[in-house]
């Protein structure tokens, strides 16, 4: 298949870009791993569930309907092709071909065996992000899930992890997750947030840039009250208990430095824990393309262009800021691509509103970043017995030994010595944890592919199996 623009990711950023570009005459192929468009924020209940009120667990449903209708219209008119269930494992710049010749390599279906290739003149990376979870004793017990994961299972399958859940960690995502689970009938035993609300107050100016967001946050507060959810700020989960499955957590209060106060621990019985410590951008595809990645995010200019000609990026892949920001960035990227593909400059006047909204939302995201810092000293809670790399079952003690006794000074050496980060997830889940426990700064790890690829597919590439 050959297209003008391949958009990778059908979340808010990818959808906004696809619509903006298609409206300006660009032929778009929208490639996404999910069975339906929507990404994380607009994740839809599966069609088979026949939800007559699919928006019950969502915010900004009207925006979604507009995006969905736009997408349907462009698909019907043949301007957008949506390839669902396509997991992209590599985007290749085809040197030797004309400039702006990309091959997007995907694997089909949840089992990911069959290859497919889309050739495109331009590429937009709109792959979003995933959640960071820092380890603590007991975090590998069944029943402990990421906050976003609980949300995804709820939005997509209308299922919940248990009867009695604690929502914990840090960041703005915890609020919709707690209210969503409560609305779905789960008892939310506590919302445990490590950040200090005074930090939030100190960011008042930045947060006021988006009054609508403050209203949204107040709405979550009201709903938490209504469901009688106990909110513990400046608290953290120090341990999860259970043998075959979670039976409870111990929470403790934090001092001004973020250290656990001795003697404040208390146990909360629960059968599930939804925990998250912020979001991390997906950057693998950008890395293999050779795009500049700064501080874990894909670097872009005012037009959302990366430093590789023909490659744009938008949404959480370029920095975490929520669905509204992803929409604005996607829209600006779509406009830029449409102009640049015809050798023109994007009409600045037309993009003014989106640019202003992007600027305000970025300020808002910065303020949130300061209000919800990752908890300092978290690694002190990680006992030597705690597994940090879940895939290879590497314990914190082994990581510390590699640093102390074997002189490992960076995550790469720790990885070689301990196998931490060498398993199925390629270090996505344990990267921040291993660096934190080892006491070295996080470095960007290069992964050859964004997905594990069956050898048969690699042997066939390139050339065969093209669609």
């Amino acid at each position, binding site marked *: 298949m050959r297209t003008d623009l391949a958009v990778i990711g059908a979340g808010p950023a990818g959808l906004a870009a696809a619509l903006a570009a298609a409206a300006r005459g660009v032929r778009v192929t929208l490639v996404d791993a999910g069975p339906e468009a929507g990404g994380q924020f607009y994740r839809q209940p599966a069609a088979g569930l026949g939800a007559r009120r699919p928006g019950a667990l969502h915010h900004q449903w009207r925006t979604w309907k507009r995006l969905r209708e736009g997408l349907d219209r462009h698909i019907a008119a043949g301007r957008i092709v949506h390839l669902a269930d396509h997991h992209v494992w590599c985007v290749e710049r085809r040197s030797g071909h004309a400039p702006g010749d990309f091959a997007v390599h995907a694997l089909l279906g949840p089992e990911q065996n069959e290859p497919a290739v889309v050739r495109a003149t331009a590429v937009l990376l709109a792959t979003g992000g995933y959640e960071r979870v820092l380890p603590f004793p007991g975090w590998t017990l069944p029943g402990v899930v990421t906050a976003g*994961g609980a949300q995804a299972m709820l939005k997509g399958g209308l299922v919940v992890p*248990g009867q009695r859940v604690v929502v914990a960690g840090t960041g703005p995502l915890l609020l919709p997750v707690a209210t969503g689970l409560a609305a779905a009938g789960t008892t939310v035993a506590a919302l445990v947030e490590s950040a200090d609300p005074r930090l939030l107050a100190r960011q008042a100016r930045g947060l006021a840039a988006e009054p609508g967001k403050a209203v949204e946050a107040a709405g979550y507060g009201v709903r938490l009250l209504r469901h009688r959810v106990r909110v513990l700020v400046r608290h953290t989960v120090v341990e999860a208990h259970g043998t075959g499955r979670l039976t409870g957590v111990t929470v403790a209060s934090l001092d001004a430095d973020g250290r656990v106060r001795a003697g404040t621990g208390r146990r909360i019985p629960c059968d*599930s824990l939804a925990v998250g410590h912020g979001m991390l951008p997906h950057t693998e595809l950008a890395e293999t393309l050779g795009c500049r990645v700064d501080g874990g995010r894909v670097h872009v200019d005012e037009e959302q262009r990366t430093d590789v000609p023909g490659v744009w990026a938008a949404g959480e892949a370029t920095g975490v800021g929520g669905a509204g920001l992803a929409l604005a960035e996607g829209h600006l990227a779509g406009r830029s691509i449409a102009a640049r593909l015809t050798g023109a400059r994007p009409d600045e006047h037309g993009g003014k509103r989106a640019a202003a909204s992007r600027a305000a939302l970025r300020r808002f995201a910065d303020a949130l970043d300061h209000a919800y810092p990752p908890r300092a000293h978290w690694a002190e809670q990680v006992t030597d017995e705690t597994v940090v790399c879940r895939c290879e079952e590497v314990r914190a003690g082994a990581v510390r030994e590699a640093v102390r006794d074997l002189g490992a000074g960076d995550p790469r050496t720790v990885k070689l010595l301990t196998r931490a980060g060498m398993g*199925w997830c390629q270090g996505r889940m344990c990267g921040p944890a291993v660096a934190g426990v080892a006491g070295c700064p996080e470095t960007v790890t290069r992964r050859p592919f964004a997905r594990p690829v069956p050898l048969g597919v690699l042997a066939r590439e390139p050339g065969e199996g093209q669609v």
Partner: protein
Amino acid sequence: MNSLRLARSRPGPAFTVTFDGREIEALPGWTVAAALWAAGITSWRTTRHEGRPRGILCGIGVCFDCLVTVNDRPNQRACLVPARPGDVIRTQEGTGHAD
């Protein structure tokens, strides 16, 4: 279930799958993980080295903690693979290959 009621869900007819030989009901559109959660099951894999139980962590296909054997194929991500009528789902021990 409350969440189904909340979304005023009118799912298609339920069907049966088995988990370690036990019959459980699944709804069309559910992933294997959703069907297992709805049946109150939260772990369906034991780890390679220490034999510890695991289930869902990320819920979106990133972490690979939810690996499971479906119809004799090991290493399927339960959070992504749709449940189909008659699926034989089994706890995956280690790599899922007899070793």
